[in-house]
Protein backbone atom coordinates (compact mmCIF):
# COMPACT_ATOMS: atom_id res chain seq x y z
CA UNK A 1 0.00 0.00 0.00
CA UNK A 2 1.23 3.44 -0.86
CA UNK A 3 -0.84 5.21 1.78
CA UNK A 4 -2.21 3.60 4.89
CA UNK A 5 -4.20 5.69 7.30
CA UNK A 6 -5.27 3.96 10.49
CA UNK A 7 -7.68 5.27 13.07
CA UNK A 8 -7.11 8.89 12.17
CA UNK A 9 -8.70 11.35 14.55
CA UNK A 10 -8.88 15.14 14.26
CA UNK A 11 -10.46 17.60 16.61
CA UNK A 12 -10.74 21.36 16.36
CA UNK A 13 -11.45 22.33 19.92
CA UNK A 14 -14.95 21.04 20.55
CA UNK A 15 -15.52 19.96 16.95
CA UNK A 16 -14.66 16.34 16.32
CA UNK A 17 -14.12 16.59 12.58
CA UNK A 18 -12.57 13.19 11.81
CA UNK A 19 -13.39 10.17 13.92
CA UNK A 20 -11.07 7.20 13.69
CA UNK A 21 -10.95 6.95 9.93
CA UNK A 22 -8.87 4.23 8.30
CA UNK A 23 -8.24 4.13 4.59
CA UNK A 24 -5.70 2.92 2.10
CA UNK A 25 -4.56 3.91 -1.34
CA UNK A 26 -2.64 1.37 -3.33
CA UNK A 27 0.15 2.03 -5.77
CA UNK A 28 -1.41 3.31 -8.99
CA UNK A 29 -4.89 3.46 -7.58
CA UNK A 30 -7.54 6.16 -7.74
CA UNK A 31 -9.57 6.30 -4.56
CA UNK A 32 -12.37 8.71 -3.84
CA UNK A 33 -13.78 10.06 -0.58
CA UNK A 34 -17.38 11.19 -0.61
CA UNK A 35 -19.63 12.83 1.95
CA UNK A 36 -21.94 15.71 2.66
CA UNK A 37 -20.84 19.24 3.49
CA UNK A 38 -19.08 19.19 6.81
CA UNK A 39 -18.52 15.45 6.76
CA UNK A 40 -14.83 16.00 7.33
CA UNK A 41 -13.41 15.23 3.91
CA UNK A 42 -11.20 18.28 3.70
CA UNK A 43 -10.12 17.84 7.27
CA UNK A 44 -9.09 14.26 6.52
CA UNK A 45 -6.99 15.30 3.53
CA UNK A 46 -5.40 18.13 5.45
CA UNK A 47 -4.41 15.77 8.21
CA UNK A 48 -2.88 13.38 5.71
CA UNK A 49 -0.98 16.24 4.09
CA UNK A 50 0.23 17.43 7.46
CA UNK A 51 -1.54 20.76 7.32
CA UNK A 52 -3.51 19.86 10.43
CA UNK A 53 -2.15 17.88 13.33
CA UNK A 54 -4.20 14.76 13.95
CA UNK A 55 -5.25 14.05 17.50
CA UNK A 56 -4.90 10.31 17.02
CA UNK A 57 -4.08 7.55 14.56
CA UNK A 58 -1.17 6.88 12.24
CA UNK A 59 -0.32 7.64 8.65
CA UNK A 60 2.02 5.43 6.66
CA UNK A 61 3.29 6.53 3.30
CA UNK A 62 5.47 4.45 1.06
CA UNK A 63 6.04 2.00 3.88
CA UNK A 64 7.15 4.64 6.31
CA UNK A 65 5.39 6.18 9.28
CA UNK A 66 4.98 9.89 8.47
CA UNK A 67 2.55 10.79 11.25
CA UNK A 68 5.03 13.17 12.84
CA UNK A 69 6.55 14.62 9.69
CA UNK A 70 6.04 18.24 8.74
CA UNK A 71 3.86 19.16 5.80
CA UNK A 72 6.72 20.40 3.66
CA UNK A 73 8.64 17.18 4.20
CA UNK A 74 5.67 15.15 3.04
CA UNK A 75 5.76 17.09 -0.21
CA UNK A 76 9.36 16.00 -0.64
CA UNK A 77 8.27 12.44 0.07
CA UNK A 78 5.87 12.73 -2.88
CA UNK A 79 2.59 13.38 -1.11
CA UNK A 80 0.86 16.47 -2.41
CA UNK A 81 -2.47 18.11 -1.61
CA UNK A 82 -4.42 20.39 -3.92
CA UNK A 83 -6.28 22.24 -1.20
CA UNK A 84 -9.89 23.20 -1.20
CA UNK A 85 -10.74 26.65 -2.47
CA UNK A 86 -7.79 26.98 -4.85
CA UNK A 87 -5.46 28.86 -2.55
CA UNK A 88 -3.44 30.35 -5.33
CA UNK A 89 -0.95 33.08 -4.51
CA UNK A 90 -2.55 36.25 -5.75
CA UNK A 91 0.60 38.29 -5.23
CA UNK A 92 2.55 36.08 -7.61
CA UNK A 93 2.18 35.88 -11.35
CA UNK A 94 0.51 32.91 -12.99
CA UNK A 95 3.83 31.47 -14.01
CA UNK A 96 5.34 32.00 -10.59
CA UNK A 97 2.40 30.17 -9.06
CA UNK A 98 3.10 27.20 -11.27
CA UNK A 99 6.77 27.27 -10.40
CA UNK A 100 5.88 27.29 -6.72
CA UNK A 101 4.40 23.86 -7.35
CA UNK A 102 7.84 22.71 -8.40
CA UNK A 103 9.47 24.17 -5.34
CA UNK A 104 10.99 20.88 -4.31
CA UNK A 105 12.36 20.18 -7.74
CA UNK A 106 15.01 21.77 -9.86
CA UNK A 107 16.50 21.48 -13.28
CA UNK A 108 15.40 21.92 -16.84
CA UNK A 109 12.50 19.50 -16.56
CA UNK A 110 10.61 21.96 -14.47
CA UNK A 111 10.39 24.45 -17.28
CA UNK A 112 9.35 21.71 -19.69
CA UNK A 113 6.63 20.52 -17.35
CA UNK A 114 5.39 24.05 -16.92
CA UNK A 115 5.08 24.40 -20.68
CA UNK A 116 3.05 21.25 -20.75
CA UNK A 117 0.60 22.69 -18.23
CA UNK A 118 0.34 25.82 -20.34
CA UNK A 119 -0.41 23.65 -23.36
CA UNK A 120 -3.16 21.89 -21.52
CA UNK A 121 -4.71 25.05 -20.15
CA UNK A 122 -4.53 27.75 -22.82
CA UNK A 123 -6.40 30.14 -20.53
CA UNK A 124 -3.34 30.12 -18.28
CA UNK A 125 -0.95 30.52 -21.17
CA UNK A 126 -2.74 33.71 -22.15
CA UNK A 127 -2.29 35.18 -18.65
CA UNK A 128 1.15 33.80 -18.03
CA UNK A 129 2.77 36.97 -16.68
CA UNK A 130 -0.33 38.55 -15.21
CA UNK A 131 -0.81 38.50 -11.44
CA UNK A 132 -2.83 35.43 -10.57
CA UNK A 133 -5.43 37.63 -8.94
CA UNK A 134 -6.93 38.54 -12.31
CA UNK A 135 -7.78 34.97 -13.22
CA UNK A 136 -11.40 33.90 -13.33
CA UNK A 137 -12.59 31.38 -10.77
CA UNK A 138 -12.21 28.44 -13.10
CA UNK A 139 -8.84 29.62 -14.32
CA UNK A 140 -7.67 29.78 -10.74
CA UNK A 141 -8.78 26.21 -10.28
CA UNK A 142 -6.81 25.18 -13.36
CA UNK A 143 -3.83 26.93 -11.92
CA UNK A 144 -4.21 25.13 -8.60
CA UNK A 145 -4.31 21.75 -10.30
CA UNK A 146 -1.48 22.60 -12.65
CA UNK A 147 0.60 23.76 -9.75
CA UNK A 148 0.17 20.47 -7.93
CA UNK A 149 1.08 18.50 -11.02
CA UNK A 150 4.40 20.29 -11.21
CA UNK A 151 5.39 18.70 -7.91
CA UNK A 152 5.54 15.36 -9.71
CA UNK A 153 4.11 13.56 -6.71
CA UNK A 154 3.64 9.87 -6.07
CA UNK A 155 0.28 10.49 -4.50
CA UNK A 156 -1.83 13.48 -5.33
CA UNK A 157 -4.75 14.38 -3.11
CA UNK A 158 -7.30 16.54 -4.85
CA UNK A 159 -9.93 18.37 -2.82
CA UNK A 160 -12.83 19.16 -5.12
CA UNK A 161 -10.70 19.81 -8.20
CA UNK A 162 -13.67 20.32 -10.51
CA UNK A 163 -15.06 23.16 -8.44
CA UNK A 164 -16.04 25.97 -10.76
CA UNK A 165 -14.74 24.33 -13.91
CA UNK A 166 -16.86 24.33 -17.02
CA UNK A 167 -18.07 20.94 -18.27
CA UNK A 168 -15.48 20.71 -21.02
CA UNK A 169 -12.68 21.44 -18.63
CA UNK A 170 -14.11 19.00 -16.12
CA UNK A 171 -13.94 16.37 -18.83
CA UNK A 172 -10.39 17.35 -19.62
CA UNK A 173 -9.53 17.25 -15.95
CA UNK A 174 -10.88 13.77 -15.49
CA UNK A 175 -9.12 12.66 -18.65
CA UNK A 176 -5.97 14.08 -17.25
CA UNK A 177 -6.49 12.29 -13.97
CA UNK A 178 -6.93 9.02 -15.82
CA UNK A 179 -3.91 9.72 -17.96
CA UNK A 180 -1.66 10.53 -15.04
CA UNK A 181 -2.93 7.50 -13.26
CA UNK A 182 -1.98 5.42 -16.21
CA UNK A 183 1.52 6.83 -15.89
CA UNK A 184 1.63 5.54 -12.33
CA UNK A 185 0.41 8.44 -10.24
CA UNK A 186 -1.85 7.46 -7.37
CA UNK A 187 -4.76 9.70 -6.56
CA UNK A 188 -6.97 10.36 -3.57
CA UNK A 189 -9.92 12.36 -4.76
CA UNK A 190 -12.60 14.30 -2.92
CA UNK A 191 -15.39 15.35 -5.24
CA UNK A 192 -18.91 16.67 -5.13
CA UNK A 193 -19.28 15.59 -8.70
CA UNK A 194 -19.85 12.12 -7.34
CA UNK A 195 -20.83 10.43 -10.54
CA UNK A 196 -17.65 11.35 -12.31
CA UNK A 197 -15.62 10.57 -9.25
CA UNK A 198 -17.03 7.09 -9.07
CA UNK A 199 -16.44 6.71 -12.79
CA UNK A 200 -12.70 7.24 -12.57
CA UNK A 201 -12.11 5.76 -9.14
CA UNK A 202 -11.68 2.11 -8.46
CA UNK A 203 -12.64 2.31 -4.81
CA UNK A 204 -14.32 4.81 -2.55
CA UNK A 205 -15.06 5.75 1.03
CA UNK A 206 -18.09 7.59 2.35
CA UNK A 207 -17.76 9.84 5.36
CA UNK A 208 -20.61 10.91 7.57
CA UNK A 209 -20.14 13.35 10.43
CA UNK A 210 -16.46 12.54 10.48
CA UNK A 211 -16.79 8.77 10.63
CA UNK A 212 -16.58 6.16 7.88
CA UNK A 213 -20.05 5.22 6.83
CA UNK A 214 -19.26 2.92 3.94
CA UNK A 215 -16.43 1.71 1.75
CA UNK A 216 -16.19 -0.46 -1.30
CA UNK A 217 -15.55 -0.54 -4.98
CA UNK A 218 -16.93 2.24 -7.09
CA UNK A 219 -19.60 -0.02 -8.49
CA UNK A 220 -20.73 -1.13 -5.02
CA UNK A 221 -21.05 2.43 -3.82
CA UNK A 222 -22.87 3.62 -6.88
CA UNK A 223 -25.34 0.80 -6.45
CA UNK A 224 -26.05 1.43 -2.77
CA UNK A 225 -29.48 2.97 -2.75
CA UNK A 226 -29.17 4.64 0.63
CA UNK A 227 -25.98 6.36 -0.40
CA UNK A 228 -27.53 7.51 -3.62
CA UNK A 229 -30.35 8.99 -1.61
CA UNK A 230 -28.11 10.84 0.81
CA UNK A 231 -25.14 12.03 -1.24
CA UNK A 232 -25.01 10.97 -4.77
CA UNK A 233 -28.33 12.33 -5.86
CA UNK A 234 -29.97 10.56 -8.70
CA UNK A 235 -30.29 11.35 -12.27
CA UNK A 236 -34.04 11.80 -12.34
CA UNK A 237 -33.97 14.07 -9.35
CA UNK A 238 -31.47 16.32 -11.00
CA UNK A 239 -32.96 16.30 -14.44
Amino acid at each position, binding site marked *: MLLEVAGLDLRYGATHAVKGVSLTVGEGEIVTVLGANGAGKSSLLKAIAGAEKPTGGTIQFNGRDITGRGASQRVRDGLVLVPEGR*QIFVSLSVEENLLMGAYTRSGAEVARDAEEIFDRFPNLEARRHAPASVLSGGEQQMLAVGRALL*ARPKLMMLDEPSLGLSPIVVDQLFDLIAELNAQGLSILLVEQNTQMALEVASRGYVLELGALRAEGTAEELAADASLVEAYLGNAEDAA
Partner: protein
Amino acid sequence: MLIVQQVLNGLMLGGIYVAVAVAFTLTIGILNFLNFTIPTLFMLAGMIGWSVSFYGLPFGMSEPLGWIPSLAIGILCAIVASLIVERFTYRYFKAKHGDATEHAIPLVSSLGFLLIFEYMILIAHGSDPRGFHTPFGDLNWRVAGLVISIPQVVGLIVSLAIVAGLSVLLARSKLGRALRATAEKPDTAVLMGVEVNRIVPIVFIMTGLLCGLAGALFAVNYGEVSPFMGEQVGTKAIAGMVLGGLGSVWGAVAGGLIVGLTETFSIYFFGATSAQVTIWGLLLVILLIRPKGLFGHNAIGKGKF
Protein backbone atom coordinates in the same frame (compact mmCIF):
# COMPACT_ATOMS: atom_id res chain seq x y z
CA MET B 1 29.46 77.10 1.15
CA LEU B 2 27.24 76.65 4.14
CA ILE B 3 24.51 75.41 1.84
CA VAL B 4 26.82 72.87 0.22
CA GLN B 5 27.92 71.71 3.64
CA GLN B 6 24.30 71.34 4.68
CA VAL B 7 23.50 69.28 1.58
CA LEU B 8 26.37 66.99 2.51
CA ASN B 9 25.16 66.88 6.11
CA GLY B 10 21.71 65.94 4.90
CA LEU B 11 22.91 63.18 2.61
CA MET B 12 25.13 61.71 5.28
CA LEU B 13 22.36 61.78 7.84
CA GLY B 14 20.09 60.23 5.27
CA GLY B 15 22.66 57.49 4.76
CA ILE B 16 22.03 56.31 8.32
CA TYR B 17 18.30 56.24 7.68
CA VAL B 18 18.70 54.39 4.42
CA ALA B 19 20.02 51.18 5.94
CA VAL B 20 17.26 51.04 8.53
CA ALA B 21 14.58 52.03 6.03
CA VAL B 22 15.71 49.21 3.76
CA ALA B 23 15.45 46.78 6.65
CA PHE B 24 11.90 47.96 7.24
CA THR B 25 10.94 47.76 3.63
CA LEU B 26 12.39 44.27 3.29
CA THR B 27 10.21 42.75 5.95
CA ILE B 28 7.17 44.63 4.75
CA GLY B 29 7.78 43.86 1.12
CA ILE B 30 8.61 40.22 1.57
CA LEU B 31 6.64 39.21 4.62
CA ASN B 32 4.00 41.94 4.84
CA PHE B 33 5.21 42.47 8.36
CA LEU B 34 5.77 45.90 9.87
CA ASN B 35 8.56 44.87 12.18
CA PHE B 36 8.85 47.41 14.94
CA THR B 37 11.85 45.71 16.47
CA ILE B 38 14.04 46.98 13.66
CA PRO B 39 14.99 50.17 15.49
CA THR B 40 15.93 48.18 18.55
CA LEU B 41 18.14 45.85 16.54
CA PHE B 42 20.01 48.92 15.42
CA MET B 43 20.25 50.05 19.04
CA LEU B 44 21.31 46.61 20.27
CA ALA B 45 24.26 46.50 17.92
CA GLY B 46 25.44 49.87 19.19
CA MET B 47 24.78 49.35 22.88
CA ILE B 48 26.09 45.81 23.06
CA GLY B 49 29.11 46.86 21.01
CA TRP B 50 29.74 49.61 23.52
CA SER B 51 29.19 47.33 26.48
CA VAL B 52 31.68 44.77 25.21
CA SER B 53 34.22 47.47 24.54
CA PHE B 54 33.67 48.90 28.01
CA TYR B 55 33.12 45.92 30.30
CA GLY B 56 34.18 43.00 28.13
CA LEU B 57 32.04 39.95 27.61
CA PRO B 58 29.52 39.12 30.32
CA PHE B 59 30.34 36.87 33.28
CA GLY B 60 33.94 37.94 33.16
CA MET B 61 34.59 35.92 30.03
CA SER B 62 36.93 38.55 28.74
CA GLU B 63 38.57 41.88 29.27
CA PRO B 64 37.10 44.84 27.41
CA LEU B 65 37.62 44.18 23.73
CA GLY B 66 38.76 46.47 20.97
CA TRP B 67 36.27 48.40 18.95
CA ILE B 68 36.24 46.11 15.94
CA PRO B 69 35.53 42.84 17.76
CA SER B 70 33.10 44.68 20.03
CA LEU B 71 31.05 45.96 17.16
CA ALA B 72 31.24 42.60 15.44
CA ILE B 73 29.73 41.07 18.56
CA GLY B 74 27.13 43.82 18.59
CA ILE B 75 26.13 43.02 15.03
CA LEU B 76 26.01 39.33 15.84
CA CYS B 77 23.71 40.05 18.75
CA ALA B 78 21.42 42.08 16.50
CA ILE B 79 21.17 39.11 14.16
CA VAL B 80 20.47 36.73 17.02
CA ALA B 81 17.87 39.09 18.43
CA SER B 82 16.27 39.31 15.02
CA LEU B 83 16.05 35.53 14.91
CA ILE B 84 14.47 35.48 18.34
CA VAL B 85 11.89 37.91 17.09
CA GLU B 86 11.18 35.64 14.15
CA ARG B 87 10.79 32.68 16.44
CA PHE B 88 8.19 34.35 18.63
CA THR B 89 6.34 36.68 16.31
CA TYR B 90 6.26 35.73 12.71
CA ARG B 91 6.21 32.02 13.32
CA TYR B 92 3.01 32.36 15.27
CA PHE B 93 1.40 34.51 12.70
CA LYS B 94 -0.85 32.40 10.59
CA ALA B 95 -3.11 34.47 8.40
CA LYS B 96 -6.15 32.29 8.98
CA HIS B 97 -8.71 34.65 7.59
CA GLY B 98 -7.77 37.68 5.62
CA ASP B 99 -9.00 40.95 7.00
CA ALA B 100 -8.02 44.55 7.13
CA THR B 101 -6.15 44.44 10.42
CA GLU B 102 -4.44 41.10 10.12
CA HIS B 103 -1.00 42.58 9.77
CA ALA B 104 -1.60 43.81 13.30
CA ILE B 105 -0.79 40.48 14.91
CA PRO B 106 2.94 40.23 14.31
CA LEU B 107 3.09 44.00 14.53
CA VAL B 108 1.83 43.86 18.08
CA SER B 109 4.28 41.16 19.12
CA SER B 110 7.06 43.13 17.52
CA LEU B 111 6.06 46.10 19.65
CA GLY B 112 6.32 43.74 22.62
CA PHE B 113 9.87 42.94 21.61
CA LEU B 114 10.60 46.61 21.17
CA LEU B 115 9.83 47.04 24.85
CA ILE B 116 11.71 43.91 25.83
CA PHE B 117 14.95 44.82 24.09
CA GLU B 118 14.83 48.46 24.98
CA TYR B 119 14.20 47.83 28.65
CA MET B 120 16.71 45.00 28.82
CA ILE B 121 19.32 47.50 27.78
CA LEU B 122 17.93 50.16 30.09
CA ILE B 123 18.05 47.74 33.01
CA ALA B 124 21.56 46.70 32.17
CA HIS B 125 23.05 50.08 31.33
CA GLY B 126 20.64 52.83 32.29
CA SER B 127 19.24 55.51 30.07
CA ASP B 128 22.38 57.59 29.63
CA PRO B 129 24.08 57.80 26.30
CA ARG B 130 27.54 56.29 26.29
CA GLY B 131 30.62 57.43 24.49
CA PHE B 132 32.02 54.95 22.02
CA HIS B 133 35.68 55.42 21.35
CA THR B 134 37.63 54.45 18.28
CA PRO B 135 41.34 54.95 17.93
CA PHE B 136 40.86 57.41 15.09
CA GLY B 137 41.42 60.95 16.16
CA ASP B 138 39.49 62.55 13.40
CA LEU B 139 37.17 60.60 11.17
CA ASN B 140 36.51 63.49 8.94
CA TRP B 141 37.63 64.35 5.57
CA ARG B 142 38.17 68.03 5.08
CA VAL B 143 38.19 69.27 1.51
CA ALA B 144 37.77 72.78 0.34
CA GLY B 145 36.44 73.90 3.68
CA LEU B 146 33.87 71.13 3.80
CA VAL B 147 33.70 68.53 6.53
CA ILE B 148 32.71 65.05 5.40
CA SER B 149 32.37 62.19 7.81
CA ILE B 150 34.15 59.10 6.49
CA PRO B 151 32.09 56.47 8.34
CA GLN B 152 28.94 58.00 6.97
CA VAL B 153 30.21 57.83 3.42
CA VAL B 154 31.29 54.24 3.98
CA GLY B 155 27.89 53.48 5.49
CA LEU B 156 26.07 54.92 2.54
CA ILE B 157 28.14 52.94 0.07
CA VAL B 158 27.75 49.69 2.01
CA SER B 159 24.01 50.18 2.28
CA LEU B 160 23.68 50.81 -1.42
CA ALA B 161 25.71 47.72 -2.26
CA ILE B 162 23.61 45.50 -0.01
CA VAL B 163 20.44 47.00 -1.39
CA ALA B 164 21.45 46.37 -4.97
CA GLY B 165 22.16 42.73 -4.19
CA LEU B 166 18.96 42.24 -2.29
CA SER B 167 16.67 43.69 -4.86
CA VAL B 168 18.00 41.34 -7.51
CA LEU B 169 17.83 38.37 -5.19
CA LEU B 170 14.25 38.95 -4.22
CA ALA B 171 12.77 39.76 -7.57
CA ARG B 172 14.35 36.89 -9.47
CA SER B 173 15.19 33.96 -7.31
CA LYS B 174 13.25 30.93 -6.20
CA LEU B 175 13.86 32.04 -2.65
CA GLY B 176 12.26 35.39 -3.31
CA ARG B 177 9.26 33.69 -4.86
CA ALA B 178 8.89 31.30 -1.96
CA LEU B 179 9.16 34.14 0.51
CA ARG B 180 6.46 36.14 -1.19
CA ALA B 181 4.22 33.09 -1.35
CA THR B 182 4.83 32.45 2.32
CA ALA B 183 3.98 36.01 3.21
CA GLU B 184 0.66 35.70 1.48
CA LYS B 185 -0.48 32.21 2.45
CA PRO B 186 1.89 30.45 4.81
CA ASP B 187 -0.38 27.43 5.14
CA THR B 188 -0.49 26.91 1.41
CA ALA B 189 3.20 27.58 0.92
CA VAL B 190 3.90 24.67 3.24
CA LEU B 191 1.81 22.47 0.98
CA MET B 192 4.17 23.36 -1.86
CA GLY B 193 7.03 21.96 0.17
CA VAL B 194 8.32 25.31 1.34
CA GLU B 195 10.11 24.93 4.63
CA VAL B 196 8.80 28.13 6.05
CA ASN B 197 10.78 27.79 9.23
CA ARG B 198 14.00 27.63 7.23
CA ILE B 199 13.56 30.40 4.73
CA VAL B 200 11.76 33.06 6.73
CA PRO B 201 14.67 33.37 9.14
CA ILE B 202 16.83 34.38 6.19
CA VAL B 203 14.89 37.61 5.95
CA PHE B 204 15.38 38.18 9.64
CA ILE B 205 19.08 37.50 9.36
CA MET B 206 19.32 40.09 6.60
CA THR B 207 17.33 42.51 8.70
CA GLY B 208 19.55 41.96 11.71
CA LEU B 209 22.66 42.32 9.60
CA LEU B 210 21.53 45.56 7.98
CA CYS B 211 20.44 47.11 11.25
CA GLY B 212 23.52 45.83 13.02
CA LEU B 213 25.84 47.32 10.44
CA ALA B 214 23.98 50.59 10.57
CA GLY B 215 24.14 50.60 14.36
CA ALA B 216 27.87 49.93 14.33
CA LEU B 217 28.50 52.69 11.82
CA PHE B 218 26.40 54.99 13.92
CA ALA B 219 28.55 54.23 16.95
CA VAL B 220 31.75 54.89 15.06
CA ASN B 221 30.44 57.99 13.41
CA TYR B 222 28.85 59.78 16.31
CA GLY B 223 31.17 58.31 18.92
CA GLU B 224 28.15 57.71 21.04
CA VAL B 225 25.43 55.16 21.58
CA SER B 226 22.27 55.29 23.63
CA PRO B 227 19.29 53.12 24.43
CA PHE B 228 17.17 55.60 22.53
CA MET B 229 19.20 55.75 19.35
CA GLY B 230 16.85 53.22 17.79
CA GLU B 231 13.76 55.31 18.30
CA GLN B 232 15.49 58.34 16.90
CA VAL B 233 16.63 56.72 13.73
CA GLY B 234 13.73 54.28 13.53
CA THR B 235 10.91 56.77 13.19
CA LYS B 236 12.74 58.71 10.51
CA ALA B 237 13.57 55.50 8.72
CA ILE B 238 9.90 54.59 8.76
CA ALA B 239 9.13 57.94 7.22
CA GLY B 240 11.75 57.25 4.58
CA MET B 241 10.35 53.84 3.84
CA VAL B 242 6.80 55.14 3.48
CA LEU B 243 7.94 58.03 1.30
CA GLY B 244 9.66 55.58 -1.00
CA GLY B 245 6.77 53.14 -1.00
CA LEU B 246 6.43 49.99 1.06
CA GLY B 247 8.37 47.07 -0.29
CA SER B 248 10.39 49.11 -2.75
CA VAL B 249 14.04 48.75 -1.87
CA TRP B 250 15.21 51.63 -4.04
CA GLY B 251 12.27 53.61 -2.77
CA ALA B 252 13.62 53.19 0.73
CA VAL B 253 17.01 54.45 -0.42
CA ALA B 254 15.48 57.52 -2.00
CA GLY B 255 13.14 58.02 0.93
CA GLY B 256 15.92 57.78 3.49
CA LEU B 257 17.99 60.38 1.68
CA ILE B 258 15.00 62.67 1.22
CA VAL B 259 14.27 62.50 4.90
CA GLY B 260 17.88 63.28 5.75
CA LEU B 261 17.91 66.32 3.47
CA THR B 262 14.52 67.51 4.64
CA GLU B 263 15.58 67.24 8.24
CA THR B 264 18.82 69.08 7.71
CA PHE B 265 17.30 71.95 5.80
CA SER B 266 14.31 72.19 8.05
CA ILE B 267 16.61 72.51 11.04
CA TYR B 268 18.83 74.94 9.25
CA PHE B 269 16.02 77.24 8.20
CA PHE B 270 13.41 76.79 10.91
CA GLY B 271 15.19 75.34 13.95
CA ALA B 272 15.52 71.97 15.62
CA THR B 273 11.92 71.37 16.51
CA SER B 274 10.68 72.11 13.02
CA ALA B 275 12.01 68.89 11.53
CA GLN B 276 9.19 66.87 13.00
CA VAL B 277 6.58 68.98 11.28
CA THR B 278 8.36 69.16 7.95
CA ILE B 279 9.26 65.50 7.65
CA TRP B 280 5.90 64.12 8.67
CA GLY B 281 4.01 66.90 6.96
CA LEU B 282 5.86 66.11 3.75
CA LEU B 283 4.97 62.48 4.23
CA LEU B 284 1.29 63.26 4.68
CA VAL B 285 1.28 65.44 1.60
CA ILE B 286 3.01 62.80 -0.48
CA LEU B 287 0.59 60.14 0.70
CA LEU B 288 -2.24 62.45 -0.23
CA ILE B 289 -0.92 62.74 -3.75
CA ARG B 290 0.43 59.21 -4.04
CA PRO B 291 -1.23 56.97 -1.46
CA LYS B 292 1.34 54.27 -2.10
CA GLY B 293 4.43 56.40 -1.70
CA LEU B 294 6.77 57.48 -4.47
CA PHE B 295 7.73 54.05 -5.78
CA GLY B 296 5.19 51.80 -4.08
CA HIS B 297 3.70 48.73 -5.67
CA ASN B 298 0.16 47.64 -5.36
CA ALA B 299 -0.55 46.10 -2.03
CA ILE B 300 -1.60 42.49 -1.82
CA GLY B 301 -5.33 42.42 -2.33
CA LYS B 302 -7.89 39.81 -1.52
CA GLY B 303 -8.26 38.82 -5.10
CA LYS B 304 -11.39 38.93 -7.14
CA PHE B 305 -14.96 38.16 -6.33
